[in-house]
């Protein structure tokens, strides 16, 4: 085997090893990465920033633990921003393994800001069939959710007193790791004209640009970089701080940088080997 052929036929365990080592080393010796904020993430931030105390923002959280690395930072940053601004939050979860994720976020952040369940935020919980649930919420939140996640009837929650349906929330931000986004676009925006923005995983990001251009969604937070952009804006706005360890996505960005360098190098090595060995023949 020539040198060039070897270049294009490294055993995959070598690739694994190099990636593993690079990730661990970067995790230990971190550094700062400059960040460019995309307009689609900024528009979500600016919208939330423009809300006044007492207004209600709805967050639909539809992801399971497997993609929390990308989406949890978004949920935390938006929740903190809202609570800091005294904006009320209405949350629901339409992914079967996701309800615990919302509980984690909201219980923790509410404690930080001294917010009270039922007054400053309401967590509706989970129901099967995301499409049907969204449609029913568009009529009245009480159809799918007669009680909240903790079993309290909605009517006995002070925040819900004057709330009927999507008309009473300023906007919906859907943070999703799967097909949930399609339901929100089709049913909440399509049927009830609700103002909608989405936060999605890196895998899904590129697929939703048509809806951004057509105005069906007003903002898009794409994957971990999107989350880091949001955190960057929220830090500048004074809603979250590095000292309290509230920047999660930003913490991983150096690892993203080094692994991307390594992967691109591997691609280059493979291609050089491919072309050189072809030329020899």
């Amino acid at each position, binding site marked *: 085997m020539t040198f060039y052929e070897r270049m294009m036929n490294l055993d995959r365990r070598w690739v694994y090893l190099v990636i593993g080592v690079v990730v661990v080393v970067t995790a230990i010796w971190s550094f700062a990465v400059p960040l460019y904020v995309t307009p689609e993430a900024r528009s979500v931030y600016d919208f939330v920033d423009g809300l006044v105390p007492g207004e209600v923002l709805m967050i639909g959280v539809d992801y399971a633990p497997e993609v929390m690395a990308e989406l949890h930072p978004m949920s935390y940053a938006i929740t903190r921003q809202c609570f800091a601004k005294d904006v009320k939050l209405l949350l629901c979860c339409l992914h079967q393994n996701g309800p615990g994720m919302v509980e984690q976020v909201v219980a923790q952040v509410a404690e930080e800001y001294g917010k009270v369940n039922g007054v400053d935020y309401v967590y509706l919980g989970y129901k099967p069939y995301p499409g049907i649930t969204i449609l029913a919420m568009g009529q009245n939140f009480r159809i799918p959710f007669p009680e909240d996640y903790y079993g309290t009837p909605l009517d006995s929650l002070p925040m819900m007193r004057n709330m009927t349906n999507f008309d009473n929330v300023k906007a919906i931000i859907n943070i999703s790791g799967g097909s949930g986004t399609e339901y929100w676009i089709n049913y909440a925006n399509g049927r009830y004209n609700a103002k909608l923005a989405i936060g999605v995983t890196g*895998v899904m990001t590129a697929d939703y640009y048509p809806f951004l251009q*057509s105005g069906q969604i007003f903002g898009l937070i794409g994957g971990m970089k999107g989350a880091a952009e949001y955190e960057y804006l929220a830090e500048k706005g004074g809603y979250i701080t590095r000292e309290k360890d509230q920047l999660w996505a930003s913490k991983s960005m150096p690892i993203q940088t080094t692994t991307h360098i390594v992967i691109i190098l591997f691609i280059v090595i493979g291609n050089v080997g491919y072309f050189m060995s072809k030329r020899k023949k």
Partner: protein
Amino acid sequence: MGTAELIWNGVAALLVLCIYSFLYKDNPFYKFAEHLVVGVSAGYFAMILYYNAFLPKLINPLRAGQYWYIIPGILGLLMWARFSKKWQWLSRPTLGFVIGSGAGLAIPLYLQNYVIRQLSATMLPVGFTSWPLITNVMIIIMVFCALTYFYFSKQHTGAFGVAAKFGIWTLMVGFGAGFGMTVMGRVALLAERVIFLRDYMVQLWGALF
């Protein structure tokens, strides 16, 4: 940091390592962790379903005297006839209810959001005098060519074939973008786990020494 949390995090860290052992090859540690999560997730979902769906949507209304909920309840129970060969057909009307309502609801909305809204958003003013107008030209040509690739009633020959070819190139740029984004997504998951392990090591070190 309490001892309980330290132990819990230790369990978590150990399980993460069990999963990573799969990179070398499939092994009993990986299988153990994998099956454990299958069971735990099923149990977790069972409880969420019971507290968040069954209680508020069926049992509590019945207790409160809203007896008409018995009808969807019975329809739901009929779904379970699927497991019997003889009574399987009983589950079909219920299934029909769910599928029929799903289909009827979806038709106008799919057409509206995926077709008509997308179509009207592509009707853009074109020209060659400014950059936005030029991008509009590109968008329209690319959408046209990509649609041509998915047109099956005509052989891809001549000018039509050229359009289809340009269409598949456009699709490839889109797939490349998807791939690039996915690399970020997958690395994000790994980075988060490694940071978790690192933080746990720091915790453990602090607790022990």
